[in-house]
């Protein structure tokens, strides 16, 4: 079945290996259709052009009241597919084609890359682990992790007054630098521990100038049969980086939006 008229566009939710029966609809409750080509199938529904053509879409997407129910519909389709399919490439919101034939062309032309992505995510779900800094680590905590600070304090205590004064100015600078280093190492240490219990780790770019202060936002790909070990490790992370200085946040399991979309070397 081709998309019904020039007033409609084809919205693609996900690509998988074979059609999966879905009980309910997608965006605007439109029925999910399948477009198949070779060994790949795309889950699609028809969406109105006056909202999903490029210009209106890029306007409407800024409106959370418009985006909200459609993003939830997108997610719900992908969640149901993710529960039934062993391998799924969930697409980004707003992947829209003019005709079914363009979707077929994608499945045909990108068959090999898409098959590779399906292998990357097979049997896995995606989680997001964030490490937030709620308060500056106190000076004693920083010094415990800083031999340089410890040494400088010793030097100040032993120095004659004039030299001690100069060294104290250096101390303030060193405290700031070492505080930053300790924070930066927290992110690296969390990443390292996540690598031990996941198939892949991707450190997200961090938003700047936010009220919340994420030190790390990592997407991780976790095999479904290793979720217990992963969740146990996140509990241990919460203990190591605990409040009130830090907070570890976890969301998931997600369909693998990030890892399905990343290139193998990404």
């Amino acid at each position: 079945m081709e998309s019904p008229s020039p007033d409609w566009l084809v919205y693609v939710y996900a690509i998988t290996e074979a059609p999966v029966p879905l009980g309910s609809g997608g965006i605007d409750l439109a029925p999910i259709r399948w477009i198949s080509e070779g060994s790949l199938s795309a889950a699609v529904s028809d969406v109105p052009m006056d909202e999903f053509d490029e210009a209106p879409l890029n306007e409407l997407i800024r409106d959370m009241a418009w985006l909200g129910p459609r993003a939830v519909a997108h997610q719900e389709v992908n969640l149901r597919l993710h529960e039934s399919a062993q391998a799924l490439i969930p697409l980004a919101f707003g992947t829209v084609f003019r005709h079914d034939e363009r979707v077929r062309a994608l499945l045909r032309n990108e068959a090999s890359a898409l098959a590779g992505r399906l292998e990357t995510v097979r049997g896995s779900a995606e989680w997001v682990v964030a490490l937030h800094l709620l308060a500056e680590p106190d000076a004693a905590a920083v010094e415990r992790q800083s031999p340089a600070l410890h040494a400088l304090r010793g030097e100040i205590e032993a120095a004659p007054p004039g030299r001690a004064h100069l060294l104290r100015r250096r101390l303030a600078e060193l405290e700031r630098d070492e505080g930053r280093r300790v924070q930066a190492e927290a992110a690296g240490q969390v990443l390292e521990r996540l690598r031990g219990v996941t198939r892949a780790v991707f450190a997200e770019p961090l938003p700047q100038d936010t009220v919340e202060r994420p030190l790390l936002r990592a997407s991780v790909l976790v095999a479904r049969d290793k979720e217990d070990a992963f969740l146990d490790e996140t509990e241990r992370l919460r203990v190591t980086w605990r409040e009130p200085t830090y907070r570890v946040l976890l969301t998931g399991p997600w369909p693998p939006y990030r890892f399905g979309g990343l290139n193998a070397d990404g």
Partner: protein
Amino acid sequence: MAEGFVSLSAPRDDELSLLELADRLLYRGVVVSGEATISVAGVDLIYLGLNVVLTAVSNLKKPPATGQLPVNSDATPPPGDIFG
């Protein structure tokens, strides 16, 4: 709203909001080859939106961002590729 799409296996004290969902779904890296797709141009503005909302909720020091939202122009494929 969050309960509709989070698995119960996720710990309950974790944040999952529409913004988190938008962040997951609108990431520019996910678009399957630029060819023949309409990609969402303003991906980065979701982060900005996130900041604004957090500010409103927390009622903290930073003023909400105002004015024109930045458009992530490099996420927009050339028009010729979109509809052919």
